[in-house]
């Protein structure tokens, strides 16, 4: 008893505070991650789910997946989707951040209101864009027709490449506020004196952007890009509602494919294996992010 009391006398009492949250997370996140890993090496389908003993099958699920002709395209799709979204949302978000960083009457209120797209449930965003891109009533087609740019309606969500494009546009719409706000905050940390001094020394605005703004923003840009990668790479709701991976798997991502395997085809082990591949890629990127953030803190 005394020993316990002594243990908690100093800083160790901190453990008591952390314990409830850690136990909760271990039960509902830690345990599932491990069981997902184990599951991916077993053969669990809807038939074997209730059996107490599940057969280990080694790497069979992974072998089957790599041979099924959907997994590899899904990996490629996930990367295409992620990279396109990041580039678009970063460029637009950056431009908007620079614009709203100027001093004018509406700057702050409008920048604030532009946050809304980021907050609304992705299911709603997906439904909204599904409507706008629909071939017979969608505003996109109506607009293009009124402008005379197209003769007959385009089937945005029914053609592989266009479906992917529509998803990228919808997801970029969600990601712009996030990029804009983070870069805006980064911009405010750059002291005005630096730019004033540069302009006195005769630097053009382009020069001061590339020689002062960009280098000073490097840490912010780094974390915006890596975080953007992480969030986009695992997007599920948006794609699930808008295209559900179709047409013919052309917009299938790792997240939606994993869901399909587990909850439409009831091949739980293969679903788990697909999720594991997604997890592995994200885990590596997350570690890179943490290294980036901590290295940055140490050098400063």
């Amino acid at each position, binding site marked *: 008893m005394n020993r316990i009391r002594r243990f908690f006398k100093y800083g160790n009492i901190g453990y008591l505070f952390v314990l409830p949250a850690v136990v909760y997370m271990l039960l509902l996140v830690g345990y599932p991650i491990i069981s997902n890993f184990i599951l991916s090496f077993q053969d669990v389908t809807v038939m074997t789910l209730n059996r107490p003993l599940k057969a280990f099958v080694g790497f069979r699920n992974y072998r089957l997946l790599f041979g099924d002709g959907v997994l590899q395209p899904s990996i490629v799709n996930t990367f295409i989707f992620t990279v396109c979204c990041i580039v678009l949302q970063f460029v637009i978000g950056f431009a908007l951040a620079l614009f709203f960083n100027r001093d004018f009457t509406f700057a702050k209120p409008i920048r604030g209101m532009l946050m809304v797209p980021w907050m609304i449930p992705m299911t709603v965003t997906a439904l909204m864009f599904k*409507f706008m891109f629909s071939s017979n009533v969608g505003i996109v087609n109506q607009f293009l027709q009124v402008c005379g740019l197209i003769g007959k309606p385009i089937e945005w969500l029914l053609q592989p490449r266009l479906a992917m494009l529509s998803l990228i546009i919808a997801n970029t719409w*969600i990601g712009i506020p996030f990029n804009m706000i983070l870069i805006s905050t980064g911009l405010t940390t750059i002291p005005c004196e630096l730019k004033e001094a540069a302009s006195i020394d005769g630097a053009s605005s382009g020069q001061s952007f590339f020689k002062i703004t960009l280098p000073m923003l490097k840490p912010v840009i780094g974390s915006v890009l890596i975080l953007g990668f992480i969030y986009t*790479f695992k997007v599920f709701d948006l794609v699930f509602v808008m295209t559900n991976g179709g047409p013919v798997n052309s917009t299938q991502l790792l997240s939606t494919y994993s869901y399909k395997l587990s909850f439409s085809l009831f091949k739980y082990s293969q679903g788990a294996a697909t999720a594991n591949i997604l*997890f592995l890629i994200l885990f590596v990127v997350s570690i890179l992010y*943490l290294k980036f953030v901590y290295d940055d803190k140490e050098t400063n």
Partner: protein
Amino acid sequence: MPDKKASENLKNTGYCIAALLAFAFLMFPLYWMVVTSLKNEIEIFKVPPTLIPHVLNSTSYSAQLKHGDFNMFRSFKNSFVISSCAMLISLVLALPASYGIARFRFKGKRFFILSFLVTQMLPVSVLLTPMFILFKNVHLLNNQFSAILSDATIGIPFAVLILIGYFASIPKELEDASRMDGCNRFSAFLLVFLPIASPGVIVCMVFSFLYGWGDLAYGMTFLQDQTMRPITAGIFNFMGQYGTKWSYLMAFAVVTIIPVVIIFVFMQKYIISGLTSGAVKG
């Protein structure tokens, strides 16, 4: 110099107009959603489209109230219960955890922080299948607790990481002073720390609620019974049933984002602060 002032004014006006244009372009989808929910089905098909409904039509909303063959207000309530409970769990667990990490020195502290950071980045997909089997084994499928418990796993790491910053910024002397005035650790936490950290607490409440509100995957997977499902899953079902009845679908979407808009209007400053300090989109 009146000339300079005039040109400043002109510049200001120019920027404001440009800002309004950008705003109108980016917010158009939301506007279009609201407008469509107020049109009748014939007007929706009109080319060129009407930017403002000619006849205001509220049937899409009232039909839901009258013969609710699909009760969107029930799923609204479900979402509200699920998100609020998930928010409560997140707060109750994250407050002590972040306080402990911020105020005490103990081994493995850094490891805890890193683990919370990494869990924030986890894809839902990794947890879905094993959680499904877990909840099935403990008979929580088709019980709203499954959605509540799983939604809280998104809120907790976020709340812990945000609150650590708030608690760490409170000077040690304040704690010493409160101890001298007769507080023990726990009353000091409740009476001194919590009030100071209240902006952080609000940020956490807002975000953990929004995570629950926005969740589709958990609610849809663990709750099969339509009467229990959250509103996001409700919309998804509704899409399957009503396919192209766009005014109904858009009305449903508008109802779903009402709480979000209310939260935004009253909590904007907390949302920006949460976002800049590392919020995730679950």
